[in-house]
């Protein structure tokens, strides 16, 4: 019974392969020698990559997206860890309320969230600065960070903490020596997962950019609207590669089982 009927299996395989298909199309288009997408391709070239690398706007956008992703992932992982650690260890009674609040952004349509974010950031006078983007990304990523950390912390046996304390460890030592290493994969999942989300976020971010700052996906979006030069294909390929590497890293250091765990709340 552990087998599927051949037609069902074929269907599954075809559909599965259709998922990354548009990405491969972008990939192929990026090596197209002519100025517009043509079939069959007339010539192959790396000219769009050369163009992408010489245009300083792209380099800047890539770097901006990378550093914002790094800052957001680090901050939100630390924030979620502190909150989850405190609630699980000292105040399990408020755990349900906190989760409700943390997961509520998930039920917000992104368009509304974008307008709400721009309304707030405009009120604070920071639209068009990295701060606006970072703060908005913190709001967007907090559920995705809290979940894996909460799951990991919840599985820590309280007797391990007590054992460390009986042996003379202060709370901080026990946290550092025992709890953090045990929660390693949850923390790494949070770091990489939120990093990827921040790096690729566009719907909320596009409301918050300004003349001085834009992120890679938002810039791709703007360029698609203006003119669809194949340089976009080269740049998109680059962004896919970065995301892909991050996912492989995640698989290596923490495994992917988190994504397919049945979530219990």
């Amino acid at each position, binding site marked *: 019974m552990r087998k599927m009927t051949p037609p069902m299996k074929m269907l599954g395989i075809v559909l599965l392969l259709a998922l990354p298909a548009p990405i491969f199309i972008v990939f192929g288009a990026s090596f197209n020698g002519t100025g517009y997408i043509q079939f069959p391709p007339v010539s192959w070239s790396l000219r769009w990559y050369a163009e992408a690398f010489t245009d300083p706007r792209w380099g800047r956008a890539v770097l901006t997206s990378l550093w914002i992703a790094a800052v957001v992932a680090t901050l939100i992982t630390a924030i979620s860890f502190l909150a989850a650690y*405190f609630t699980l260890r000292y105040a399990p009674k408020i755990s349900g309320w906190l989760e409700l609040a943390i997961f509520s952004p998930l*039920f917000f349509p992104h*368009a509304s969230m974008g307008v709400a974010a721009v309304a*707030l950031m405009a009120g604070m006078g920071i639209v068009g600065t990295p701060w606006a983007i970072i703060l908005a990304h913190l709001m967007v990523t907090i559920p995705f960070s809290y979940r894996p950390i909460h799951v990991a912390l919840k599985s820590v046996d*309280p007797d391990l903490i007590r054992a460390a304390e009986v042996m003379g460890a202060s709370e901080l030592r026990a946290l550092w020596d025992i709890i953090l290493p045990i929660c390693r994969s949850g923390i790494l999942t949070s770091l990489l997962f939120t990093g990827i989300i921040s790096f690729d976020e566009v*719907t909320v971010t596009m409301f918050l950019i300004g003349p001085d700052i834009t992120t890679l996906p938002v810039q791709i979006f703007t360029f698609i609207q203006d003119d669809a030069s194949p340089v976009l294909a080269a740049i*998109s390929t680059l962004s896919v590669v970065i995301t892909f590497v991050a996912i492989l890293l995640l698989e290596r250091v923490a495994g992917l089982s988190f*994504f397919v765990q049945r979530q219990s709340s």
Partner: protein
Amino acid sequence: MNTGEKPTLAKGLMLLPALIVLGLFFSSVIMLFSNAFVDRGGFSLRYFEQIFSRPDYHVVFYRTVITSIIVALLAVLLAYPIALLLWRSEKHRNMLLIVVLVPWLVSLVVRTYGWIILLGPKGFVNAFLGWVGVIDTPLKLMFNDTGIIIGLTHVLIPFAVISILASLLSIEENLEEASRVLGAGRWQTFRTIVLPLSLPGVFTSLIVIYLACVGAIVTPLLLGGITEKFVGSQIYQEVMATFNMSKAAAWSICLLSLSFLSLVILKIIERRALRGQE
């Protein structure tokens, strides 16, 4: 890991950063409301009245909802065989999972761009058909509802795969064998055991995909163009082109209310369908 100790106030500070982030989120919602009910410096319901009275706006909401429902159903339908495939292939599951995760996590813009290359007037499909000689003038595959539906469905299938797979993986292994031993056929086992137990994943997908669709901006804007408006693309235009924050906020609130209403309805349907489970 609760050790039964009483927290001190100083330790309570650990909660503060998270509360700040949540505080920002809730203040942004408050700001949204305070923008929506203001026009030229005073309280006004102008933009809400506008939404309720203009038939062309009704069409936009109507299109958004109908398209979202179609996309949610289509995505779940197409995701199910993929989830089954991953569930069955224990050995290669991790590799196959990456094939699902990468399209899920790669930026929306990039995935939509792929569809533009495919479906555009000078795109891959038209170029191919022209080269073969099937068509003389390019087919209109984009800038219409079809384009939006194709794009959104494709963008959201990976999530449905993951959440249905999670449900499938939580089915106890011997349940199926038990059913077979008791004499149920392959199809009957699927229908009476596997499908009902995977319903929680199906409903999670429907809800999340529906919500993602009604709030989508990028895909409808790029594949639907300016004429086939979505609520999201309308909102985008109000903020970015006409700089009318009040109108955008009013639209956002209507979108928000619509989502909550839909969420409630979907939850009721879910509860009914899952009655007896858990």
